[in-house]
């Protein structure tokens, strides 16, 4: 894959600040389900934007609206200055969607050959295979590939037309750590070639690792937007984990403690001023064990932002369907 990065691509020089995709006051309902409730969101040329949220937050709906696959109930969807259903736009956009079944009897190179034929100026097949890390798999049937390899083929189909703007809907869902890192490298390669990328994810780490800007979406609404650092700054403080005999109520009453949760045999304490809390904990409980102090990362920020939607504070489970 690294070899692919050095190859010359006909990159489009991004014009800074130019808006290439936007949702303005967009509402979308599926029957009684309000998938998006007045979303305003935009993507500028050359940036990587992550739409981050739990399952059912409206991420996939936003992507499908931007691809012109479904119409909004209200509001305006604009891509490359026009209507997303405009065929000319589809020439300049690539999409990676969540698919239940891809024709399994076609070979990797056949899938790429067919999709490349739709475009005016596709990338050479060899470059597509290299950029998606599929050189060794070109003659394999899609049905014989592993989950990560299948995602890479879908990625290849998204980039084969050499589009300026890419929509990647949960590109790494269901992948193991290694396969995820490979795909991240490939996405970073796109950015280096001047592409604009909108990706959706419910992996906080992924948004942090890839995006210039994150929009947090929950229950059909954008609840926060900013750089990964800005999102993190929305909840400051530290997380203290320890096994203690002190009761939850007593912990909550300590100065500087913002939240306390039970986590199996231990407790998890969120605090603005960790040092004073730790000092007090050690003073009051001689049997305290398993002390860990970590800074509140993006994960805490995300949990804090979306807390009302998540019962008992669990992280959303990876799921193939995310709307």
């Amino acid at each position, binding site marked *: 894959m690294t070899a692919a990065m050095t190859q010359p691509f006909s990159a489009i020089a991004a014009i800074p600040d130019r808006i290439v995709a936007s949702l303005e006051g967009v509402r979308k309902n599926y029957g009684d389900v309000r998938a998006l409730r007045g979303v305003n969101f935009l993507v500028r040329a050359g940036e990587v934007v992550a739409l981050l949220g739990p399952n059912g937050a409206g991420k996939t709906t936003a992507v499908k609206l931007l691809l012109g696959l479904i119409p909004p109930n209200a509001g305006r969807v604009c891509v490359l200055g026009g209507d997303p259903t405009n065929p*000319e736009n589809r020439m300049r956009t690539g999409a990676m969607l969540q*698919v*239940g079944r891809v024709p399994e009897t076609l070979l990797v190179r056949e899938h790429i050959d067919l999709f490349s034929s739709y475009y005016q100026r596709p990338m050479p097949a060899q470059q597509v295979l290299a950029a998606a890390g599929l050189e060794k798999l070109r003659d394999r049937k899609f049905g014989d590939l592993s989950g990560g390899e299948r995602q890479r083929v879908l990625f290849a189909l998204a980039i084969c037309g050499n589009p300026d703007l890419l929509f990647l809907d949960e590109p790494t869902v269901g992948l193991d750590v290694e396969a995820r890192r490979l795909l991240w490298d490939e996405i970073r390669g796109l950015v280096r070639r001047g592409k604009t990328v909108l990706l959706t994810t419910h992996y906080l780490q992924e948004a942090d690792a890839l995006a210039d800007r994150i929009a947090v979406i929950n229950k059909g609404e954008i609840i926060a937007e900013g750089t990964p650092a800005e999102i993190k700054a929305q909840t400051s403080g530290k997380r203290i984990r320890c096994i203690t005999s002190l009761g939850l109520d007593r912990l909550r009453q300590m100065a500087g403690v913002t939240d306390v949760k039970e986590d199996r045999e231990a407790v998890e304490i969120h605090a603005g001023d960790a040092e004073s809390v730790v000092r007090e904990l050690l003073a009051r409980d001689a049997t305290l064990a398993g002390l860990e102090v970590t800074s509140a990362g993006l994960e805490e920020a995300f949990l804090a932002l979306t807390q009302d939607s998540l019962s008992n504070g669990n992280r959303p489970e990876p799921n193939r369907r995310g709307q």
Partner: protein
Amino acid sequence: MSTTAMTLSNTRIERSPQHTAVIYLKEAKYEFLKNLRLRVYTASVLSFPIMFYILFGLVLYAKEAIGGMRAPTYLIATYGTFGVMGASLFGTAAGLASDRGLGWLQVKRASPMPPFAYFVAKVITAMIFSTVIVLALFALGLAFGGARMPLAQFTGLLVTLVVGSLPFSAMGLAIGYFAGPNSAPSTINLIYLPMSFCSGLWVPFMFLPKMVQKIALALPPYHLSQLALGVVGAGSHESNAAHWEVLLAFTLICLGIARIGFQRDQGKLYG
């Protein structure tokens, strides 16, 4: 490509006719290869009409006469209709229902693929498999059943059956738009098998109960089989034009239903 590619144009796609032709050809080629390698498809679609023909046309009734002609010849027309119908229904409906229901069609719709290419590829693939089935029946009949006919008659039979696949491809598109991805094959069988029986594709029409014969008049496979039998000289009393009219009307109704499904899909979420 240059920086101008980022300008905010709103023009239509300008593809050369050659480029469009290449897309249609590739779409059809890969649809054909996809089905050819799909054992479920080839096994059911190719082997059933061929097995039936061998059993009834070449083993059980090889020496019999049906409708004033030798059974091996007569049954090429009826099992040919049966085979064409299966290739078309399964080729269009099963693939479409699965592509629609499991998200693949959305990936294609998000690409600049000309939407029509997708459907044309399925119809052409069904016609190719139809041709293969009819040729296989004819080769078997000629080799083992003495089913000889003049070249003109053979060509007429082949063209009738292959063109006659179109109403069933249309029907397959209609089913494909309204059946679920997993229920599509059983839905097809529920329609395909009773329809084949009632149209006289398994048991010759004249041996069917009077009641079933009346039903047959309303069924498209009956009309196609009568057209095919007409070519070899064992058709019914109705005129060929009447049969073609029924098939044309049926095709248009099915395309109308498929169109409703196509438009409904634009506003709905799958996967």
